[in-house]
């Protein structure tokens, strides 16, 4: 069994970062692993950067892990991904959503959002396995931009080497979302999973 698997999930407050952490956390519990997942609330949640450490394995204690020891970085937004890029080890994996949520400060400073190529190039300095997906676009095509996080979760399951079976994650999605949204979310997960599988 995995001794320690460290995930950092980052994004913008209110875009479902914590939801995917909770789904993965309960899936790890169902898998029989120790789980620790740490998050911040209150002031830190109001549309600002958010990140949560999710750790699973047989030897897990601390709520967070040191930079450079992450196995997987899941980014809901490009700038937030690069903000946390130090968390992941070089041989780990980065899976991120390319959809930009422009920080207001860019508009105030009349600055451009950094180009995707440049961002990926920087990410590759820190981690050799970088996968990108426009999860928000896919979610919009499914009719609900709000499920972008679940699309990204699918992609992370496909590429992230997470020590959990996808079927278990699908079960946890079903347990988590309101009944009338189950089909939509399961479809979002599968679409995300397949979208990166070919890469």
């Amino acid at each position, binding site marked *: 069994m995995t001794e320690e698997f460290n995930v950092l999930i980052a994004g*913008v*407050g*209110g875009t479902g970062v914590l939801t995917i952490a*909770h789904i993965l*956390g*309960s899936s790890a*519990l169902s898998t029989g692993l*120790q*789980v*620790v*997942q*740490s*998050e*911040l*609330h*209150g*002031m*830190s*949640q*109001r*549309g*600002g*950067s958010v990140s949560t450490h999710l750790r699973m394995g047989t*030897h897990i*204690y*601390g*709520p*967070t*892990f*040191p*930079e*450079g*020891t992450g196995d997987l970085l899941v980014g809901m937004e490009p*700038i*937030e991904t*690069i*903000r946390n*890029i*130090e968390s992941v080890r070089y041989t780990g994996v980065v899976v991120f959503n390319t959809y930009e*949520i*422009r*920080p*207001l*400060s*860019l*508009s*105030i400073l*009349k*600055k*451009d959002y*950094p180009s995707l190529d*440049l*961002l990926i190039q*920087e990410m590759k*300095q*820190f981690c050799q396995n970088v996968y990108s997906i426009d999860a*928000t676009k896919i979610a919009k095509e499914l009719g609900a*931009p709000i499920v972008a996080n679940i699309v990204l979760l699918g992609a992370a399951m496909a590429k992230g080497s997470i020590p959990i079976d996808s079927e278990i994650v699908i079960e946890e999605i079903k347990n988590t979302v309101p009944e009338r949204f189950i089909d939509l979310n399961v479809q979002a997960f599968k679409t995300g999973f397949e979208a990166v599988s070919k890469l």
Partner: protein
Amino acid sequence: MKQILEDDVGKKTLLMGNVAIVRGAIEAGVSFASTYPGTPASEIGDTFAALSSRFGWTGYFEYSTNEAVALEAAAGASFAGVRAICSMKHVGANVAADPLFSLAYTGIDGGLVVVSADDPSCWSSQNEQDNRHYAVHAGLPMLEPSSSQDAVEMTRSAFEISEKTREPVLLRTTTRIAHTYGNVVLGPIQERKTPYFERRISRVMVPSNARPAHLRLLENLKLAKELSENSKFNKTSMSDTELGIITSGISYAYTLDALRWLDIEASILKLGMSYPLPKKMISNFIESVEKVLVVEELDPWLETQIRAIAQVNALNTPVYGKEQELLPLAFELSTKHVALALSKVTGKPLPIDYTMTNEKFETAKELLVSRPPQLCAGCPHRASFYAIKQATKGQEVYVGNDIGCYALGIAPPFHLGDWLVCMGASVGIACGTAQIVDNPVIAVIGDSTFFHAGIPALINAVQNNVNFTLVVLDNLTTAMTGHQPSPGSKLGDMRGTAIKIDELVRGCGVKDIYKTDPYKLEETIQIFEDAIKQDGPTVVIARHVCALFLDRMKRKKGIKITHSRVDPEKCEGCRTCIDEFSCVAFVWDTITNQMMIEEVLCDGCGVCINVCPCGAIYKEEAKQ
């Protein structure tokens, strides 16, 4: 949520630390719970609230007006013979300190547990005070969980310790315990106690009773020390005796990770019941190892006491910690901090050379744009702040801000906040400033904070005829901490009557009271102009429901949100909207030099329509 009430002994589940505390209290047969919401303690109250309103828990829960009242109410239940728990954030304990200290003298009947959730690194607070000092200062037995499992077990035991010692017990957590999910095995649920009210003169703290009460407290603490020496929460695990580590709370978890990371063996003394300290146990531990490292967050609280224990027992074992600057005095610890300290003590290097990665990060940093917390799209406070700015254009006004979402008004473009100190201080400090300066003085405070601590200061302003304007930003809820009910509104569950702020303010003696809906910009600007001009204390109540609360409700009910858009034909790129209103949904298009609205974020409040001088912003539906 349902599982918190289930008598499902041995079931394994994943619980957030705060929720684990609730489970522990339920297992202990708690009858009464009270709180004033504050991050990172909020979910304790919210879980009790949900259990009683939706899951049939028959115990009593209340959101109290402030922490002092919450603690007094819990003490009242304890005096009536049942087990009670009262939770608060660390600075809430300052508000509750008055009853807290005297309750240590009166003693309790039903077990009374006081939860203080501290916030090292000030993630959501005005300071990072270390509330372990309260245990010593007031004289309260203290428990410090290191995990969610600990939180369940320690809360359960805290009630027993409280009844045995007849003292309130302090359960001290920190953000990383409170907001971390971890594995938990559920235990059996005990019966609730039958109420009894014994009339005791020992609870009447007049001087003649207070003196013997202090002696009684000292006796009770002696018993607590015996309990601590034998507590299952104080545990020694002997391994290599070259290094012994003494630690508690979340620092224990970091210590285990750091030892594994560096591949070091060390003996550990984990202090779960950290006040009164098990002095014999500590002295034996110090004696059995060659050197000691004390690992703790914030103040050298353990370290100082441990040095004293070593001195009293004439032990020469070197003790390392903050004194040698091996660990920081400010902000939360991490596995890396502990690993660095271990590395210095043992000479074993960290597995990662961070100087290399830091260099690499320098270039990545250039791509980073900061994304501080923001008022939500559609937030009524943004409209109020815009109106205050417009109404005071060209004047030097001094503005006191307060604790809540609206504290974000200190940021650009509003810069409304010349002081922000603690709950209610916007008003109290305004009372002093306005008596000295001639400039207009304004205090802005949310509805819940006003009820919590603003009222006495307003009365002071009336009594002393302070020339200032109080703005009550009434969003009908306690938004910041997760939308708990506010005494002024019927949103959420309330047993009693909603209190009308205007009537309350009138009752405080204020004559000039203005009411407005901040979404109506023009009217609100006029009202601020009038109120600020008026002599003496004036009050503006700006009332509009919290946008996030409303959006969530709409989403739940499947009501569609109609966004606003910018008409590129009409937008002249004047940037008035961005420079003066700065809604988070605004995006500046650097190619066309025009404004756009990000529809994923826009909540369709429509307030920006009246900010644009060119009439370029419109509601989506209007165009169809």
